[in-house]
């Protein structure tokens, strides 16, 4: 195994997060089985106190997951020199079959942790913890995923052998090759553009309707999730081309480097914020009927909608800006 300090750091952080979320999940099982708000027993008081611990833990997990996502990409990038044919992180992730799954799991866990924090926030606004069991059921889904991410990440680092010939992102994301990634790039830029703008409009309109009138919330949430996926595809398909000013450079990781003004961070941040906020609205929809939440829920959902729309607007704005100011053209726009 390559003993790079960054790898040690990532493994340690993943280990810590796994321990934290698994212990949270175990307490969660107890809470699901024994929670009874009306009882003044000492056990109930203990459980209530425990929820503070788990909320604190999950907040930290969320923050560290985001950090480890970027650290992971950066590490993959700095390791690319050890592999023939890898020009950046995209190639380094392809070195063994665990690279991309780690990346995807990290993104999934960021989103799930964010959603958990939203549900937790709403639950705490009501005076009878109406969502307590559902919340910890969600944790029982998230904790194993964090464990899986840890394992897959460790496998990625232990299975990689330096000097292995691998595809650089040129051949990985080019239309000629095979495999998932090249299928994405193979989406013709024009079709991807149309899809991108269409879904953006749908999201924006349904979001505006929901914010003003309180209707179409479900549609908006679905659209926001769809926009997240479409944006990922679109970025690889055409947005990246404009930022790199090369018709063949589709890589979603190089954009985090200094040479491109670290613009990748804005794109990632806005996209992740948007999808967590947008999906949050949908996740909260089933709880609209609960009495104790009647006062606070609609307002929270509206705020999330606003956050989602602003984030997505920023993402689209920055992307379009980069597409407009460059001399490079695909003959489209």
């Amino acid at each position: 195994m390559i003993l790079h300090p960054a790898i040690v750091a990532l493994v340690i952080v993943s280990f810590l997060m796994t321990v934290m979320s698994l212990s949270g999940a175990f307490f969660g099982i107890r809470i699901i089985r024994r929670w009874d708000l009306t009882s003044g027993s000492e056990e109930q008081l203990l459980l209530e106190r425990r929820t503070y611990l788990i909320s604190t833990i999950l907040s930290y997990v969320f923050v560290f997951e985001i950090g480890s996502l970027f650290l992971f990409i950066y590490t993959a990038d700095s390791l690319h020199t050890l592999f023939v044919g890898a020009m950046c992180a995209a190639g380094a992730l392809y070195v063994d079959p665990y690279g991309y799954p780690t990346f995807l799991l990290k993104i999934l866990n960021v989103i799930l942790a964010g959603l958990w924090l939203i549900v937790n926030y709403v639950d705490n606004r009501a005076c009878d913890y109406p969502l307590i069991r559902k919340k910890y059921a969600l944790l029982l889904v998230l904790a194993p995923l964090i464990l899986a991410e840890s394992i897959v990440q460790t496998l990625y680092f232990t299975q990689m052998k330096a000097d292995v010939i691998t595809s650089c992102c040129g051949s990985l994301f080019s239309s000629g090759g095979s495999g998932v990634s090249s299928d994405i790039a193979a989406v013709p830029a024009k079709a991807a553009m149309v899809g991108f703008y269409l879904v953006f409009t749908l999201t924006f309109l349904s979001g505006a309707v929901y914010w003003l009138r309180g209707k179409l919330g479900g549609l908006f949430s679905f659209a926001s999730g769809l926009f997240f996926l479409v944006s990922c595809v679109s970025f690889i398909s055409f947005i990246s081309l404009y930022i790199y000013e090369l018709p063949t450079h589709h890589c979603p990781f190089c954009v985090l480097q200094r040479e491109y003004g670290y613009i990748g961070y804005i794109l990632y941040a806005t996209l992740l914020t948007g999808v967590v906020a947008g999906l949050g609205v949908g996740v909260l929809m089933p709880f609209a009927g609960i009495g104790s939440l009647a006062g606070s829920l609609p307002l929270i959902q509206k705020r999330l909608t606003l956050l989602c729309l602003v984030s997505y607007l920023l993402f689209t704005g920055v992307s379009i800006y980069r597409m407009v100011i460059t001399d490079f053209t695909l003959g489209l726009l």
Partner: protein
Amino acid sequence: MIRLLNVRKGFNLGKSNEFIAVGGVTLAMEANRVTVLKGPSGSGKTTLLSLIGCMARPTSGRITLQNGLLGGRSFSGGKDTPEVEVTSLPERFLTEIRRRTFGFIFQQFNLVKGITVLENVMLPAYPLGEKHGVVMKRALALLEMFGLAERASARVEWLSGGEAQRVAIARALMNDPPVIIADEPTAHLDSKLSLEFMEIIARLKDEGRTAIIASHDPLVYNAPMVDRVIAVRDGLLDGDGQ
């Protein structure tokens, strides 16, 4: 009005050192009155006090607060009920109520050492998120009222017994609570300071506040402004006194 309905509080239930501090108390306290809980140490009056003051949850039974006492804030899903049951409220709501409803004066004053008098008085207001300047002005006004304005920047360790007592009272009044709760307030005071304390209580009653005091000091429960004396023994009430 604060109402307790068959309230019990036990510790270490089911274990060998099981201890029932309060065993089935039903009580109704009226607003704008001075009530004294009289009883020897170990009688459970302190536990009763902490239950009334929303500091602890009862093992069984119900506690309700009059909505008016809460300064108009309702906690039961937006409905405007005259009484709010606080028995099963989660901690953050209970603490919210406690902050705005009750002011506490402890037996040993319990001022935070190492910070100034002014900061001590301001502490209860920190979680409410008001502007720092506003909070400081209010605190200074309270210190004025008790003649402690010049001692505002003094360390609490340098205060005399009487001064400390008045700082503790000022702190209790920081969030303008309708109810004052005092636990053995005169235990460490001489007769002169004890009488002064009761006079302050009378003043607070004139302002429209309620006072609930736990004490086994005759100076307290025999004071003229006391409206009602409740005897507590072994976790149960011992008849009603006037």
